[in-house]
């Protein structure tokens, strides 16, 4: 059996990534080399939360693009809204937006969700992408790269 550290470096899983997105606008040129994301679940059925885990997989290797997850909205450039909100999550969502430092952007992934309220009625500020159809980790990364202007 190989030693643990050796096991880790002998397998190269990162894949070449071909960006193929649309309908998003570049946030600000200052985010071209680095983008910090805070995801918030507002009532999705769990698949978007799992896609966040998939996005951290070595196949995507998001750090090479300068993309990182943060543990607090106060450190984030982008708030990633996962799903269509339940009524109870509207206030926590608004409060999370209040905590974001300027400049910031909001990305909404609805993932063809059958439940929840129409997020457009909330009139969220600085929405740079609003994707209604189902997305996977690859598509999410594509959207983020578009926002960065890469």
């Amino acid at each position, binding site marked *: 059996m190989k030693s643990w550290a050796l096991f880790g470096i002998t397998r190269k899983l990162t894949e070449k990534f071909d960006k193929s997105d649309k309908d998003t606008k570049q946030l600000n040129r200052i985010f071209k080399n680095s983008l910090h994301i805070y995801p918030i679940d507002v009532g999705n059925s769990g698949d978007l939360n799992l896609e966040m885990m998939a996005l951290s997989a070595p196949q995507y290797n998001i750090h090479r693009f300068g993309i990182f997850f943060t543990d607090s909205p106060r450190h984030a450039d982008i708030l990633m809204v996962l799903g269509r909100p339940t009524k109870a999550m509207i206030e*926590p969502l608004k409060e999370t937006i209040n905590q974001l430092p300027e400049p910031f952007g909001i990305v909404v992934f609805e993932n063809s969700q059958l439940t929840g309220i129409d997020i457009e009625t909330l009139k969220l500020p600085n929405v740079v992408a609003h994707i209604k159809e189902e997305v996977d980790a690859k598509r999410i990364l594509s959207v983020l790269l578009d926002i960065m202007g890469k």
Partner: protein
Amino acid sequence: MRLLGVFEKDSKEMLLLQDKNTFFIQDRDSINESFDNYELLKNRDKYIGNGKTEGSGVFNFRYGPVTGGVSDAGVFNIYTHGERILSVNIDPSYKKRGIEKLIIGNDIQTSLMLSQSICSNFALSHSNAFLTAVEDAGNFSIDTTTKRIRIIAAELERIYNHLYVIARLSKGASQNVLTSHLEGLFEESLRTNQIFSGSRFLKNLNGFFIDKNTIGSLNEIKNRTEKIKKDFKELYSHSLESWNFIDRIYNTAVLTGKHALSIGVTGPTLRACSIAEDSRTYNKLYENFHPITKDRCDALSRMQVRAEEIMQSCEIIEQQIDKISSEEQHKKDIDISKISGMGIGYCESPTGLVAYFIELKKGVVENVYISTPSVFGFKAFCDSFVGYIFTDFSFSYDSFGINFADCSR
């Protein structure tokens, strides 16, 4: 006998019960037995836990619904002096979507889609439980190949969910090499699902007839599961040698078998208490199936059960693919628009038993009750976390494989 649910029907309080492989409903007034988890199930949409603790210096540390530690929308009210956890109360209302209400009045096909949208990572289990409930109500059976395809999908669901849980545990212990490789395998398992069903979460596959010619290449699925099994086996043996990982989950969040049974917990949590119960044993198509058990009742045991189940699921998939390849498929004519009656269906999800009670009238759902494993799992988490410290939170919570989407419906 296990109590799975409490609901209203014709102004009477009914109980959804399980006695080994028999599932039934009964009027509460006509049953003499009492159930320890009655209050839990009665109040499952309001709170789950072991109550508030008051006293000098005790405060409520409110964790969620927006926190970096838990990706799901839900609130943990943790009562503590500042170190030891005294009690935990969970508020599941933030993710309440009212899907049972949405199902009522809909036809079977729309209801199937709604059942899949309860919890995407258990989408296949929910759809299986819903469809078997309809089959029970309509008193018909489906062809064997479709049943085998459902088994393959259920095992694919188990594989990626178990990988997810073990990766979360590893991440909590800062095992970066292991986590990275597990996340890589997790992504590969989602891609396998996509090849098999066209969906990374195995949605829109299930039905009363699944044509074996419309699903992805079975040979490719077999090769991919073989590779996942081989790679995971190597990673798992490495992980068991990493003492700073094992120390974090050994003897953490202990839940005894007796306590697990009183809560009504099923799945890997129960099997980690040496109780060999698994509803897959009731399905004759699972040949030579023996539930995997461990006996320490802690987070490590739960992880070990899940790890060994990943390899077992890969073997089950290979067996079923071999059978499907050599059998002819015959479509049965089923008119679902005329089904009337009551039915109960179930499926062994990666976290435990999902059960559906439905009432149909001419193919329209008139009443539905959904029993989900996360309700019992959240109670198990609350009870087992008492006496530990907040640093153990992620190991305790993640080891149960529960989530608010499944719990709050």
